[in-house]
């Protein structure tokens, strides 16, 4: 396990969930390992298992302790210890770590960085002392990893942002339209639904990040790579129109 010592920790998240934390940081290798642990666990169902959620550098298993005891998986008072053993085994067996981080699916997201579609672009550009075009150039130059999906259905946490775009969150959340592309800290993300949000919205995509009616509702999953491509407001409206017609 190159670069990964056995310095992980396992701890309870209340009486019905358990977390394995690989290091509490935004790190590609730890994220790859987290997703490997998640996949290892998904492939090994047990009675009473409710959910498995991988995040930046952790994996959490949600379970029903009473269900586990009644199914005979663990004796009374032993469900947590049983799961701790499972997570330690997952850490040992999941992986191994890839030599390179390439190979994930690359998804291209068209984004309009203009006018009403980019409510915060000029403010952020002014704050960063660069023309908006340069900011857009830096944002579209990156190839971003989807570290995790969270916050909202289908919301991808993407990293890492170019150092020159790093910016603290807004002091107060504001209304964001579905498709809004935001930046905050060293991260960028896409709001799949209309929502209050604290990230600076520098563009908007007409692509649906979350479609409740689709067989796979979330467009992106952890481990994907995302590249942004600039489109014009006319393109935005054409793609939106095509999307809504396709649903008729």
């Amino acid at each position, binding site marked *: 396990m190159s670069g990964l010592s056995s310095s992980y920790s396992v*701890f*309870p*998240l*209340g*009486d*019905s*969930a358990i*977390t394995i*934390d690989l290091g*509490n*940081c*935004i790190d590609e290798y730890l994220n790859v390992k987290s997703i490997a642990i*998640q996949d290892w666990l998904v492939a090994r169902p047990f009675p009473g298992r*409710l*959910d*498995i*959620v*991988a*995040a*930046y*550098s*952790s994996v*959490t298993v*949600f379970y*029903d*302790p*009473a*269900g586990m*005891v*009644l199914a005979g998986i663990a004796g*009374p*008072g032993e*469900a*947590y210890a049983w799961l701790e053993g499972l997570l330690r085994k997952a850490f040992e067996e999941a992986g191994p770590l890839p030599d390179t981080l390439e190979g994930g699916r690359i998804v291209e997201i068209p984004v309009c960085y203009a006018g009403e579609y980019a409510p915060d672009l000029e403010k952020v550009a002014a704050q960063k002392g660069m023309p908006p075009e340069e900011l857009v150039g830096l944002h579209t130059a990156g190839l971003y990893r989807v570290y*995790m*999906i*969270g*916050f*909202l*259905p*289908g*919301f991808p*946490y993407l990293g890492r942002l170019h150092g020159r775009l790093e910016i603290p969150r807004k002091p107060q959340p504001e209304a964001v339209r579905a498709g809004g592309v935001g930046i905050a800290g060293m991260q960028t993300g896409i709001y*799949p*639904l209309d*929502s209050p949000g604290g990230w600076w919205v520098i563009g908007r995509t007409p692509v649906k990040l*979350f479609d*409740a*009616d689709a067989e796979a*509702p*979330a467009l992106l*999953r*952890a481990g994907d790579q995302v590249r942004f491509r600039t489109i014009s407001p006319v393109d935005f409206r054409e793609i939106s129109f095509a999307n809504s017609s396709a649903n008729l």
Partner: protein
Amino acid sequence: MAFSIIKPGLLDTIQDLGRHGFGNIGVNPGGAMDVYAAQVANLLVGNDQHEAVIEIHFPGPQILFEQNTLIAITGANFSPTINDEEIPRWQPVVVRKNTVLHFPSLVQGGRCYLSVHGGYCLKKWLNSYSTNLKAGAGGFAGLALKKGDELPFNENTIYFAGLLKNESNFETLPWRVNTEKIYQYPHEIGFLPGREWECLSPSSKNALLENNFLIHPSSDRMGYQLKGSPLALERSVELVSSAVSFGTVQLLPSGQLIVLMADHQTTGGYPRIAHVVTAHLPKLAQLRPSDTIQFKLMDPILAEQLLLSRQKELHILQRSCMDHLNEMVC
């Protein structure tokens, strides 16, 4: 085979025991805030505990029954009536066709649950009936119930008209549930220490154990904002986002606490001070804004025992309700 909403309540949504298994695409479990009350509502009328129920907040809706129906109402006491006659809670009731269910006054509690025998005939979304208002999916058209909505029931085989006496608008069936143990000491909420519990300053730990916390009016199905003496960490912690759960108690930068409830986000990055024990979430779900909470440190073994004994009692309840129902109709 239906009932219709004559007048919607503040927030009436279809819920079940939650949508589990989709946290990795950011879809929260949702589900009933008071899972116990939802389970019992179903069992009383002979349903599986996973059937859909309606979660009702006060002021509640007015509902017209378009057929004779076996119902149960559990959870909060909003003094339910059928054609202005009070009906019991936590007990199965046969209601006559063309009567109206109404919830005229708030006596106690946060939300009540309405089940119908056979269950509501709805399509599941991602394995669950629960309404996800944010995604506009699940439940009844992904929305809270509104005026004119007609909720169809699943086909059932029991002939309820025979159970209704002449002239009466409803008939109470003679079995009920003793819920005293689940809801006793309603303000005492058991917790297990969270990962960052040890980062609290000693005086803040004491404050959490000794003081009362007020449930702020902005509390909802996503979370209960608490108001109390501000708590402080001994050393600051920076956390990257990770999974959170129903009952996770986070410390906000303001020093105030928030308890994550059924519609919580899947992930969060605030310090996890504590977790409400799962067996006490029904009590918490029945507290209202301006109610107070006293946190009680609990042993994890006891927390699990409470869940296990509750689950065993629900199994017994299920069997006896089925037996009673079968006797009634044979």
